[in-house]
């Protein structure tokens, strides 16, 4: 076995060790690197299902000035291999000048749903007692900003909101 001695610079043993290491690393990379992409794949997909549209809420004639009214609707979208229905809640308040306040009922704190309490004259979030005034301003609680507003338009007596979703 003199020909395999270390005096030739590379012994048979270290050659085999090296080859095994390289092959092992190659196999690990072939499986491991795609696996990272595999796991992250749906998270990184920039929503092909994302859309923006005008959603009709209802006729404006039924709205009483100064009285918040909840409109609810659902939109379905394809998530993974399933169609999922998302429900949305929108509070609309008619103002004396016939313009509207249109709020999302999603609390700006941690995304619970707020509801209008007539007797307290406030929107109240049940999760952390966040309170908003009728015009959406912060009254008290942990929320960082007033209620989010939707862009809206009135066409032929029907109120539309501009819905954008990521």
């Amino acid at each position, binding site marked *: 076995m003199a020909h395999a001695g270390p005096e030739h610079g590379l012994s048979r043993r270290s050659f085999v060790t090296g080859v095994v290491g390289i092959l092992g690393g190659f196999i690990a990379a072939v*499986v491991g690197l*795609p*696996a990272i*992409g*595999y796991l992250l*794949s*749906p998270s990184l997909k920039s929503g092909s299902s994302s859309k923006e549209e005008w959603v009709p809420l209802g006729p404006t004639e039924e709205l009483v000035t100064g009285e918040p009214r909840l409109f609810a609707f659902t939109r379905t979208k394809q998530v*993974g*291999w*399933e169609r999922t229905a998302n429900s949305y809640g929108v509070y609309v308040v008619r103002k004396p000048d016939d313009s509207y306040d249109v709020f999302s009922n999603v609390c700006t704190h941690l995304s619970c749903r707020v509801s209008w309490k007539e007797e307290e004259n406030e929107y109240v979030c049940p999760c952390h007692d966040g309170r908003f005034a009728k015009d959406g301003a912060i009254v008290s609680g942990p929320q960082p900003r007033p209620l989010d507003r939707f862009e809206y338009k009135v066409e032929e007596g029907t109120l539309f909101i501009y819905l954008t979703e990521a």
Partner: protein
Amino acid sequence: MAARILTWLDERLGLTGIYKTVLDRKVPKVNWAFTLGSATLFLAIMQAATGIFLTAYYVPHPDQAYDSINYIMNDVAFGWLIRGIHHWGATLMVITVVLHMLRTFFYGAYKYPREVTWLTGVLLLLVTLGMGFTGYLLPWNQRAYWATTVGTSITETIPLIGPFINQALRGGTDLSTLTLVRFFSAHIWMLPTVLFGVIGVHIYLVIRLGISHVPSEDE
């Protein structure tokens, strides 16, 4: 620096001892047929790794199993690769297990003192086939459904206890959601637990007893 960290760890963990015992074993002069056990172990580890990744998307429910696999194959990055490796690895593993058994049999390597190694090997063969059988149903396509219908029906022909075994496998008289979920449970928890536990015993015995040499003509 790296060498010093290794020395520090080695002193406390005995890594060199493990390495020498497990990999620097004295072996007789053997041939390529003696690599079949290692090949099977490698495939088992690949199956475990890819299988774990598949559970990130697969849903074991009749309404969603097929769709979720379609999603893996068409929409998830490298989903085709992960499932492909799992699919072909399964077939390949059955082949290497059987060849490994044939080598052991024809070289008489199951004899004293390796009888227990052989017995655990038989168990590993059965568990591997069980993994193949339970995994085959999971895509919940026509082939999977009918293959499992036939496979479970075969058990029904056993005298006396046949119908009971059939129902126990199916979780009822017919193939249903219950069949799919129990096959999934067996495939990802029960059988792998047994498989890797027994692999541990099998390899311990191989290391403890050493491997047999190729029989010579006068033996």
